[in-house]
């Protein structure tokens, strides 16, 4: 598949006259991924324990989104309206936001570490966000305001990212092996802290059970509140990411080159690390730890689009949303009536892919 995608990029690049013409890989990929996202989103709402017809789904969504009165809902039962708009739509939107956030965060981390294996859940950032959220749960802050969840998650994510950055990177570059080892150790340490906190709060079984369930990564019973909690943070993170897309291209060529081509390296690095932590925290605060999304999505896209971030970040957001909505659909429907945890499904795709990439880079790592 790798060779095929790479070949596709060569073909599309050649068709564009080497970047001089109007056609580019992005002009093909972005519409295709957008269409896939629309299809998967409608399917996500239509399919479930109770099936809803496609036309009904589109009619209800259109009626809710367009100004009132444009589309009649008389023909749709109250129950169907509730399933579509109150139960499934928010879940699909949260899934989309989580996917977009994690994919973009992964893309940024790979750029800033100049390391194609960097990803939020692999280098401990998601675990940091989860610890922050666990603290917010246990202290009862969440009960006072749901906003504590993303804020505490952000503090956790940022501290973890800062720590792994300080440990693993030298002269703006984190070698594959060092970054992975530092990230895994840090992730394990943070997870142990979370486990400790959870086991200490086992007096209250219900709270502990809820936390454990959520840490495993899932999107069950997500509501419009969750959309509201995470959407502003995702939007802010995406804006910061896109604003620095060109700087991130320069960073891929090394700090000195980036500086000599006009980038303020220190400022770019701070902004990008901030955005990656923010996006990871926004995702983790509504879905728990959903792993590998930021690895699979940018990697596949980079093969077709190339590493330039202007198009890569936008395409990652769209494809990340598509990927997580599809994984969530699978998690809900593979083994009815029970749901498989979403984190399990993304890991089932992501972990083998990660191992495959690791094997490809075994020379660089120096063992295997």
């Amino acid at each position: 598949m790798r060779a095929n995608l790479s070949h596709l990029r060569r073909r599309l690049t050649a068709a564009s006259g080497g970047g001089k013409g109007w056609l580019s890989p992005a002009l093909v990929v972005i519409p295709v991924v957008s269409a896939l996202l629309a299809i998967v989103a409608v399917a996500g709402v239509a399919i479930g324990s109770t099936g809803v017809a496609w036309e009904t789904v589109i009619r209800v969504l259109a009626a809710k989104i367009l100004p009132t009165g444009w589309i009649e809902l008389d023909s749709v039962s109250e129950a169907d309206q509730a399933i579509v708009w109150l139960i499934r739509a928010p879940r699909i939107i949260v899934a989309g936001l989580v996917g977009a956030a994690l994919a973009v965060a992964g893309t940024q981390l790979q750029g800033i570490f100049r390391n194609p294996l960097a990803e939020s859940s692999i280098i401990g950032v998601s675990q940091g966000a989860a610890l922050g959220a666990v603290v917010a749960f246990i202290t009862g802050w969440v009960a006072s305001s749901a906003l504590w969840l993303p804020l505490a998650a952000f503090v956790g994510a940022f501290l973890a990212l800062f720590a792994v950055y300080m440990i693993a990177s030298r002269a703006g570059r984190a070698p594959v092996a060092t970054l992975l080892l530092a990230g895994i150790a840090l992730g394990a340490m943070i997870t142990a802290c979370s486990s400790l906190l959870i086991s200490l709060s086992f007096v209250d079984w219900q709270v502990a059970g809820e936390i454990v369930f959520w840490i495993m990564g899932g999107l069950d019973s997500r509501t419009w509140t969750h959309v509201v909690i995470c959407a502003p943070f995702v939007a802010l993170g995406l804006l910061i990411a896109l604003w620095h897309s060109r700087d991130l291209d320069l960073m891929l060529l090394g700090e000195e080159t980036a500086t000599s081509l006009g980038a303020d390296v220190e400022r770019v690095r701070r902004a990008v690390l901030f955005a990656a932590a923010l996006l990871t925290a926004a995702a983790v605060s509504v879905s728990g730890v959903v792993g590998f999304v930021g690895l699979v999505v940018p990697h596949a896209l980079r093969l077709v689009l190339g590493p330039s971030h202007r198009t890569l970040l936008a395409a990652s957001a769209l494809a990340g949303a598509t990927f997580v909505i599809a994984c969530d659909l699978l998690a809900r429907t593979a083994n009815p009536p029970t749901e498989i945890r979403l984190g399990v499904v993304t890991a089932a795709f992501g972990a083998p892919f990660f191992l495959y990439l690791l094997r490809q880079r075994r020379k660089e790592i120096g063992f295997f």
Partner: protein
Amino acid sequence: MSLSLRNAGIQIDGRSLIRGVSLSIESERVTAVVGPNGSGKSTVLRLLAGLWKPTEGLAELNGEDLARLPREAIAREVTFVPQDTRVDFAFTVRDVVAMGRYPHVGRFDSLGPADNEAVNAALTRADVAHLEDRFANELSGGERQRVLIARSLATEAGAILLDEPTASLDIDHSLETLELLRELASEGKAVAVALHDLNAVMRWADQVALMNGGRLEAIGAVGEVVRDDLVEPVFGVTVEHIRAASGNETLVFHRLQGPRTAA
């Protein structure tokens, strides 16, 4: 165009890399920076390029303190070709060279016709036009070196600084690169280049700065600096002069201790 250091020095982590260096590189001249390993050649270039800020003294571009100029303004005037040419991601050669235009276009703007013109010209001059659709991470070290030179040319900066650009090039491409630097100088650019090969320096440079242990030992025209009484103590060698039939003078170096004997 004038780019200069005034009594400049820099300490990193308490260690002094260079001290009290004053020199100036001018338009239409190739300045070679020479010296043993660790003598501060690369540091001189980095201070001139504004990549590092001097902790004492000043680096100046046309009389203005580099440390006070915005990064993008410096990037339009001064370009740097690093020694580390590693590229980890699959940018096409054209993408890499086009990045030389970034200081000239807005954050979200695409390259205009004039920019593409500059990119094409740079690709051709650095002899990498035939590689433009190849991925930069799949090239040989020498090819990558030339791609980075092309990127620097694409900036159309008035000063071009190169850190040992011939280190990974074969003989033909080394000569071609040095010829290109001469050409750029004759077109009005200020060129500064760190080199190890004193024979190349004699042949291609106008001005030579000789570094030794973080200090500027000598600076001046080639004949004033590449002299036995300066070169021999700094490099710890003896120099033999050979005149070829073509009239070119070649230096042959001998270690002071004599050749190594097999143990």
